[in-house]
């Protein structure tokens, strides 16, 4: 058998192998090769997107190692995953609200308390504001508590507020999560929550104020 013929056969067998491997991987739900592939797969499965990836954040002390933020014309998608298995990551979707959109990931309170001790709350807006102030107001049994925090605009164009979750009152943590995500808990929470987002320009002047929830 000539050398050229052998090489032709090798190429043919390689093609058969690659084609068969692709078929097997596709039919057996093989693991995604990259975190981005896992994100796109989840996106398709949840029937949202495809969204433009804005940024990938690292949360080393958290339940998940990374958070991917993406945006589309209609909303924002968040994908959290661990390096060990991106396919086990969690995808969340937040539709755009008029003017500004708030988002927080759904964490367990225990995860927060024993890890970084703060809940990341994101604010997205098309306004050219450079800083923002977020005020959370929770009312339980006629008693109102206010939590305030500031944030600078990130390079990717959003505000990241760090809400300290240590020593919070009763269900405040859940009430705020429920109000922001619009996703109800399995159990009934007594109380109300509102949020006010104030946007400031480079001179420190108040540009806009947004109230949440937008519709009640």
């Amino acid at each position, binding site marked *: *058998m000539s050398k050229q013929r052998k090489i032709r056969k090798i190429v043919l*067998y390689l093609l058969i192998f690659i084609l068969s*491997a692709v078929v097997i991987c596709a*039919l057996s739900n093989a693991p995604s090769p990259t975190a981005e592939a896992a994100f796109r797969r989840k996106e398709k499965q949840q*029937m949202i997107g495809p969204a433009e990836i804005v940024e990938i954040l690292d949360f080393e002390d958290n339940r998940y190692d990374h958070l991917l933020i993406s945006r589309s014309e*209609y*909303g924002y998608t968040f994908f959290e995953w661990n390096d060990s298995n991106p396919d086990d990551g969690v995808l969340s979707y937040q539709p755009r609200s008029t003017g500004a959109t708030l988002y927080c990931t759904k964490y367990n309170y225990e995860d927060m308390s024993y890890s970084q001790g703060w809940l990341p709350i994101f604010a997205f807006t098309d306004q050219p504001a450079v800083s923002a102030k977020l005020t959370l107001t929770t009312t339980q049994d006629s008693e109102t508590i206010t939590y305030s925090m500031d944030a600078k605009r990130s390079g990717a164009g959003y505000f990241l507020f760090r809400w300290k979750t240590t020593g919070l009152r009763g269900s405040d943590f859940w009430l705020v999560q429920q109000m922001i995500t619009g996703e109800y808990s399995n159990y009934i929470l007594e109380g109300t929550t509102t949020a006010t987002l104030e946007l400031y320009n480079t001179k420190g002047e108040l540009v806009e104020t947004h109230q949440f929830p937008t519709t009640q």
Partner: protein
Amino acid sequence: MQQENFENWCRKATEQIRYGPDRRAVSEELMAHLEDHRDALRAQGLGEKESEQHTLASMGSAEEIAPQLAEIHKPWLGYLSSLIKAVAILTATLAIFFCISICVSWLHTLISSRNFDSIPANNGTLDYYCHPMVSTWSDGYRFQISEAGYSKQESDLYILLEIFHWPWMDQPGVSDHLWAIDSLGNYYPSMHASQYSDQPRVTAQGWQSTTCIILRFMCIKQFDCDAQWVELHYDRDGRNIVLRIDLTGGGKHE
């Protein structure tokens, strides 16, 4: 006898070629060459024995040629070819096995009956029952409502939602986000957007799945049975899936 001498010569000349198929191919080639040479000599008038001796003499010593042939025909490319061939056959067999198992599973689902008896919350008796057979496509998934019915006592509308997809696609996670509206303007929020289970809303009662089909048993809680139609909606991230169920036909179901 003559043939035997040629074969012996070829065997000795090729015995140092390590890759079997190469050894056989070279041996066959040499044999053909020897026979041609012998035939040519015989055509010139030489006897059988003489032509054989001349042929072998002209080829030289088989022991001397053997290392040279082995040097030309190194075995690595051959071994590599055999290895890749074996792997290719194995993976191709596996792929065919996967395809067959999926086809069998898919056919089984198509043939086997699927109906409201599988709904966990339903006792099997419905005051109204119909086959709307409405369908739509989105994102590579085909949504079809094949059965719907309600019992006035429970005032729940049961819907059998079939979702077809290609075998390489994951099962869609949309049932938590389906909401509904009926002809009377009643709004039934999705499970994702409703807090209390005793309020009107769309819920998922159970499901069955195979490789290419998922059956979702949906239920619209506290459904207004006077409605003439109801629409199931999915509108996340720019989608606009609408499945309208006409409730004017149909009849009682036992």
